[in-house]
């Protein structure tokens, strides 16, 4: 059973046709990398899964997006609940101007969790899952802005994990980070794969090949090629894909 399934999805920003007839399946507990040049629609596609595109005016979407076999664009879907199930980590670290603890607890609090010890346990567990515990355990009440960029991004991952999603969307999570922090995030993705279905947008080919099981190559709003990462990177079916991966264009 596919965790996420897209059937003939189209997306328009006003008159601009940003995603064209996309159909693909993502399996449970795998990492899927979305690659392609800037403006190819990969981030837009990623944001379909937690309906982040709803925030933009003049967006029109056709086709079906299924998460756990449920059409997330049908009328009886509660968007807030969908976003609990489908967590997201953004391109730039964007912690709230609150303490480290409160950043991670935020998702629980807004979703009505009142049990203090549960919140505490979950926060600690999430920070540990995000491989950040050793660095912040003694300053949970300090502002999140005191952390370095890489730490902030792992805090954002912890924040996403705290509400126990089953899918995590990552929009170029390491693009604003130094190599060391990037390595830590990639390591983390490997760990998280055991429990979560991950979709990651990246500009970094090496990163895509290192962290993902499946890779989808987007170009000008179309899904050009999709398959196992090993296949895509070693023997792509299309010349176009090969050119991009080897850096001959894009």
């Amino acid at each position: 059973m596919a965790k996420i399934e897209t059937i003939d999805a189209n997306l328009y920003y006003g008159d601009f046709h940003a995603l064209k007839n996309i159909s693909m399946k993502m399996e449970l507990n795998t990492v899927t990398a979305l690659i392609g040049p800037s403006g190819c629609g990969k981030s837009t596609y990623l944001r379909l899964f937690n309906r982040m595109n709803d925030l933009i005016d003049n967006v029109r979407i056709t086709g079906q997006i299924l998460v756990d076999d449920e059409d997330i664009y049908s009328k009886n879907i509660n968007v807030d609940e969908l976003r609990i199930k489908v967590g997201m980590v953004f391109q730039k670290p964007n912690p709230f101007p609150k303490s480290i603890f409160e950043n991670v607890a935020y998702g629980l609090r807004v979703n009505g969790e009142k049990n203090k010890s549960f919140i505490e346990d979950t926060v600690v567990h999430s920070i540990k899952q995000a491989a950040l515990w050793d660095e912040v355990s003694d300053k949970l009440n300090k502002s999140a802005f005191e952390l370095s960029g890489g730490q902030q991004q792992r805090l954002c991952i912890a924040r996403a994990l705290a509400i126990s999603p089953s899918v995590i969307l990552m929009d170029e999570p390491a693009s604003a980070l130094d190599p060391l922090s990037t390595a830590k995030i990639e390591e983390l993705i490997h760990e998280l794969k055991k429990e979560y279905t991950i979709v990651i947008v990246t500009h970094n080919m090496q990163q895509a090949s290192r962290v993902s099981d499946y890779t989808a190559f987007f170009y000008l709003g179309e899904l050009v090629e999709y398959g196992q990462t090993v296949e895509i990177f070693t023997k792509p079916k299309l010349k176009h894909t090969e050119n991009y991966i080897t850096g001959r264009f894009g």
Partner: protein
Amino acid sequence: MTKPFHKKLLEKIVEGILALSGSITSLAVLLIVIFLFKEGLGLFKRSPVAEGYVLAVNKNNPVNRIDSKVVKRIFDQEITNWKSITGKNDTIITFRLDNLNSYYSDEKIGANLENLSVCISSLVDSISGIIAFVPQKNITNDFKGKLVKPENVSAGEFFLGKEWYPTAEPSAQFGVLPLLLGTLWVSLGAILLSLPLGLAVAIYMAEVANPRIRNIFKPIIELLAGIPSVIYGFFGLVVIVPLIQSIFNLPVGETALAGSIILAIMALPTIITIAEDSIRTTPRSMKEASLALGASRWQTIYRIVIPYSISGITAAAILGIGRAVGETMAVLMVTGNAAVIPHSFLQPVRTIPATIAAELGESSQGGPHYQALFILGCILFILTLIINLTVEYISSRNKLAKR
């Protein structure tokens, strides 16, 4: 290659003009402040008794100096015995020139008041409990009474005095407390009304309204800021004052509440514009992060957007107060202008700016009243200065917090 000489010269001249206009402006501001304080502070060296007049008592009266507040109470017949102000046990008899006819006939005084000085002298001499308020020019060298000097206007009396009767005779009362409290009271009411409303509109425009509606609302709100305050005064006088009068069943509708409502309307554009700008600075990524965690739009607004922009909102509120504190015309027209310490919003009050506007024209230049109005100006200046410094402090602190 060096620039041609005439270009260099032109640059120098432009530079000079800019520097000159900058320094002239700063100098002008400084001069205004100095002028304000110089004129105002002279008050504390003055006697509150009307110019050209003196107070005289019987020569056996041991009292030498009288507080100006006491002078007023004596002439208002609130103090009727000398012993309550460290004198002898004797009934106080007040005397003004108006009372002259009850002591002397017209013939005695003379058709052209030529015997006035003699009459006053003998009157003061013959009545032991008298206190006479008479023109200086009628006190001749052979005057048989004794002149008492009222104390100069003191700072304590000025700032803590509860009575503002700047034209009272024989002794003017410059108690600024009712005016100060009136100003703060009306401003407080205004901010209590305008802050919730302004904040609601700001949030609506920044976060909720779609761009089309916002493009209609925004110019209308900015138009509010451009309406002359006297028009607001008209509106208040014709619409709000009668409304308050009938709703609360008051004898007059000109109350602090009317002033507060008008000021609230006037402060709204300031509050809305600044608060909205500040709310808009909340990074989109911050809001998206909140929504992505399953927070609803409202949770995002009150848990993320408002805390993030709280310093801007505070600045908006304080600037709104500043607008209210300094507003003159509209308030003058609707608050009833009674210089009493306010106890409720349904009483008339008198604010500092309204006092200055209303009274400066009728005070004699250089007189104590005139100077007292200048001190009111100083107080207003200091109030708005404090407000501006607070805003400055809050926004600088804010910049630090956001790195």
